[in-house]
């Protein structure tokens, strides 16, 4: 099965300006979304019967310190009715901001908090953006690449 292939075709037809690029690896398809269109894209993916991604499986980020837009936020959506998964990505600056998906899926709440905790990305419109795994008084962002892997 080619996860997300059809959905990304539909997405490109519906939001020609919203999709920056798309690709796949081992038949898992992903699309890079323009950050300004994220909410529209996600709402459409969730509500349109042809895509119906009712389930936000995961929100996370990857830090690419050598790139111009260093933060990559990665969303995994899943459709229970169609048994299909798709990966959305977007690029943003050091601390975002990125619109929060809390209004669409409750699972965005804790997962976005974790991305904020670990990378410092600010999710705009999040009702409760505070650290989740690290202590409140902690000052570092451990999953950023400048955070050392070991003390040598």
């Amino acid at each position, binding site marked *: 099965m080619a996860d997300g292939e059809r959905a990304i075709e539909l997405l490109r037809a519906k939001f020609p300006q919203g999709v920056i690029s798309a690709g796949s690896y081992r038949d898992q398809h992903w699309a890079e979304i323009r950050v300004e269109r994220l909410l529209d894209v996600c709402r459409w993916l969730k509500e349109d019967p042809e895509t119906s991604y009712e389930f936000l499986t995961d929100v996370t980020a990857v830090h690419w310190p050598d790139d111009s837009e260093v933060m990559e936020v990665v969303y*995994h959506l899943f459709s*229970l009715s169609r048994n299909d998964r798709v990966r959305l990505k977007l690029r943003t600056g050091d601390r975002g901001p990125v619109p929060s998906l809390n209004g669409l899926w409750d699972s965005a709440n804790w997962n976005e908090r974790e991305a904020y905790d670990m990378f410092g990305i600010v999710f705009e419109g999040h009702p409760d953006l505070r650290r989740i795994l690290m202590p409140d008084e902690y000052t570092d962002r451990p999953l950023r690449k400048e955070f050392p892997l070991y003390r040598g």
Partner: protein
Amino acid sequence: MMMQQHTIERSDEHPDIITINMGPSHPATHGVLRIVLHLDGERVVKAVPHVGYLHRGMEKLAENRTYLQFIPYTDRMDYLGPLASNVGFALAVEELLGVQVPARCEVVRVMCCELARIGAHMLWLGTHALDVGAATVFFHTFRDREWHYDLVEDLTGARLTTSYTRVGGVVHDVTRDWLKKLREFVDLFPGRVDEYESLLTKNTIWLMRTQGVGVITAEQAISYGMTGPSLRATGVEFDLRKARPYSGYENYDFDLPTGSRGDVYDRYLVRIEEMRQSTRILDQALENLPEGPVNIDDPKIFIPPKKRVLTSMEELIHQFMIVTEGFDCPAGEIYHSTEVPKGELGFYIVSTGGKSPYRLRIRSPSFNNIATLPVLVEGGLVADVVANIASLDPVMGEVDR
């Protein structure tokens, strides 16, 4: 940015609000979970869970480990069913590599997954019943857990830190003796499940403590990203073993128990039935265990057999390279998930090539499941908080990673 208010002050609207702290070290929180409860008499007005007390930075550590070196960390995620996490991680790396394991290995891995499910559900049942005052059940399940742990120990050499899988196989084959012991377990265990049920399923006190308590609707559960038995108890028939089979799960005949009310009792019934279904799967796995190798024959990925290592220079070098440096993975990114006892355990691996992941994300079922706790407990009684926590079956090693 609007910050959510985390304390409810006494006011005209709430004249008798008391804020109490539960955990992180509390016998009914099943690990280090802390919940701040705002109570109006016996009613929970607001509950705020705090997690992270068992955070060990596994995602960060993975960036400094080879793929093989990360396997012991997966033991320490869901430490009640480590075999299932071992399998999940091995499958994710194999997906990244594009490697397919032999048929015998798939069946052995299915045995691991189902044995883990039974063990995890036994612990859940014993402690859940104990939390709401039915102490007897605990002794029954812990007696049988010892039996289950003997099997795990015979198979892997460890009760808890199993680290049984390798990328491209398992560490060693199952023995005939072990299969005989597993057969005995499979034949006798369903009787034990009946025994547990006779203590609870029609027990009036149990029914009063669980029915209609901690209700979550299917829509809410889906929105919160809830997976596993807790999701199925709301009536959603979703299990990755059926929806997206791996390790040959499509070849097994088993049912997916679901609930309808999404309360503590339904979550109980679903997990009880899952133990029976798991023994059904184990039974079929024992019947259909093919002969053959349990690992791939690729000395660049899987350590060659000791005999070859000791007799061939080239194989010795392969072993040395895998152990000291690890193997190379292609550049790419994959998300692979499996149905572990708590729900969907996903690994998102970003590789830029090389011997360690550039980024390893662990999507843990307990993390997303425990986020629903306020939905379950708010509006209910303070005494039901423990029943709700237990019915979600969180394991903090997996929540905090």
